[in-house]
């Protein structure tokens, strides 16, 4: 059970962020399906917004975040510009990666977001290394790495977690468990009791939280962040949620029971749940509605602006590969 009563302002910010993420992804899906403007695959996190909002609420701008192919929500909540993100999804100039990465490689180093990743599980070791450098440099930032439930069956999960424990690094590993790995139910392909049990076997403190309860996630993360800022050791957080869309925006997800997603939405939609909490805590219907409408307005506007932005200059195809032996000088 959660109560926003004691922290009304935080509850409002959490809802606002979830609304923005939802609206961003709804517009992104429209841009993909209706407008055919997003040419590559996008992986929506609709239904999973509580993790992004609850975790990032407790991070500072300089803290480091690494994410996955399903990372729009995490990136937005870490503070990236919605316009730069939408431009990136459309492959336009001024996108956070100059239109060269797209949805799967979205990153904004200015807000400590070191990248989504197109390779499942790959960021786990990289994030451990970011925490390693923080320790070597003697500063007190913390690192959060988010991965999916499918990623725990890849080698980097073991190698990266072991590394973090051995070197006592200030990092939180978050398994954002939406129960699916692409078109397969993850449980059918996973031995043992999953992410938390595996972390415990490495001597890591492990917490499980309702991944659709943004207040609970924010509370839990506040405690974990305090422990990490005091010097670690690394921890794991398992947040169980549900992927409401298909694996990509193109995937109709016919491989799962027809009513599963709608049942989940009814019971567990994190936005609906947070609205109910805030309503009970005394927020007016009008204010709740205005958070929704503002988010919609922002993202409709962002999509329009992104659509009106030109594609990147052709010569940038050869920029930022390398300094020594750059294709700008000679490609072959």
């Amino acid at each position, binding site marked *: 059970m959660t109560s926003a009563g004691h922290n009304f302002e935080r509850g409002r910010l959490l809802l606002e962020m979830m609304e923005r993420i939802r609206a961003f992804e709804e517009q992104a899906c429209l841009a993909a399906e209706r407008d055919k403007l997003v040419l590559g695959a996008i992986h929506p996190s609709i239904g999973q917004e509580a993790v992004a909002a609850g975790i990032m609420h407790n991070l500072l701008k300089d803290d480091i975040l*690494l994410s996955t192919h399903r990372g729009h929500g995490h990136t937005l909540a870490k503070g990236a510009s919605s316009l730069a993100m939408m431009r990136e999804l459309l492959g336009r100039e001024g*996108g956070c990666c100059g239109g060269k990465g797209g949805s799967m490689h979205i990153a904004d180093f200015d807000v400590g977001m070191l990248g989504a990743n197109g390779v499942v599980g790959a960021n786990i*070791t990289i994030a451990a290394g970011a925490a390693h*450098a923080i320790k070597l440099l003697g500063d007190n930032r913390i690192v959060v790495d988010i991965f999916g439930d499918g990623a725990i069956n890849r080698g980097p999960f073991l190698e990266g977690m072991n590394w973090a424990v051995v070197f006592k690094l200030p990092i939180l590993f978050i398994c954002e468990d939406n129960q699916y790995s692409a078109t397969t139910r993850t449980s059918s392909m996973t031995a043992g009791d999953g992410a938390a049990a595996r972390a415990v076997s490495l001597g890591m403190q492990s917490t499980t939280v309702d991944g659709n309860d943004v207040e609970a996630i924010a509370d839990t993360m506040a405690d974990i962040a305090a422990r990490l800022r005091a010097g670690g050791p690394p921890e794991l957080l398992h947040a169980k949620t549900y992927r409401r869309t298909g694996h990509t925006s193109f995937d109709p997800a016919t491989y799962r029971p027809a009513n599963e997603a709608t049942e989940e939405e009814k019971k567990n939609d994190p936005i609906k749940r947070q609205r109910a909490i805030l309503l009970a805590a005394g927020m007016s219907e009008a204010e709740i509605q205005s958070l929704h409408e503002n988010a919609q307005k922002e993202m409709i506007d962002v999509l329009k602006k992104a659509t009106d932005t030109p594609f990147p200059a052709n010569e940038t195809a050869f920029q930022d590969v390398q*300094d020594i032996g750059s294709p700008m000088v000679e490609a072959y």
Partner: protein
Amino acid sequence: MPKLSYRDASLAAVQHSMREDQTVWCVGEDLGRGGVFGQYKGLREEFGEERISDAPISEAAIMGAAFGAAMIGTRPIVEMRFSDFALCATDELVNQIAKARFMFGGQSRAPMVIRKPMGLWRSSAAQHSQSLESWYAHIPGLVVVCPGTPQDNYSMLMAAIACDDPVVYLEHKGIWDIEGEVDFSKKYEFGKAKIRREGSDVTIVSWSNTANLAVEAAEALSGQGVNAEVIDLRSLWPWDKEAVLQSVAKTGHLVVAHESVAVGGFGAEIVATVAEKAGHTLKGPVRRLGAPRSLVSYAPNLEDMLRVTSEMIVTAAQETLEKAN
């Protein structure tokens, strides 16, 4: 000028760089005790266990973690122990390190050196003997170098550590003990070949330890009145086309020799470039030497079946001269 082994030249480069720059650190298995070839000996005592860091036997994590650390302000030197084991970290190198700067639109850099001792090392068999430099040369985003002498293993490692691009640094593990004078003030410029011997009759292009064999071959050839020019490319990406084309313009004859498998090897790239840009000036057929496309054995006689020798380089040079147009 001190006389140093290939091993100690690299050790001096790491030591000098670490003294100059506090953000340089080394990470790999068994580094605390000096590294498996002794190329880190004494560094733990001088720099401590955080900067000469041991690692679990987790090649993917060594590579991935070093990359994460490189993106936020340190300059890691990654030790892969044997280049063969670096294959366990292929995703980290090829999909992550080589691509991050580009995919993120220039937001990140990966200033790191990835040391991968490669090559034949008597009776190490198929999983401890490979030379895969042409694979790395194929990957945009990477700088690929193959030092063959103590001087180069000092100057090139200094340059690699100071470089803001990821550098795949392929030392040859068969030559840790060769000695030579090392001038610490000599700077290496990436993409600049070294003319190891000047000559006007035939151009021999090589790198790594095979460049040493090419110098031996050139000496043998000079006894037969053939004046061979030996070009040690030193770096494969970028590589010194100018030096090769200039030399071929002079000699009209080209031999390319490397230890790695000939098929799809970097020698083919050199030959193709010469054919495109200067094919009409060639006076004889090009000769390309590399290992047969087979696997390295344990038994010494079988291992030798895959070895490119200085005698083979001599013969190749003679053949291109004999068949002159």
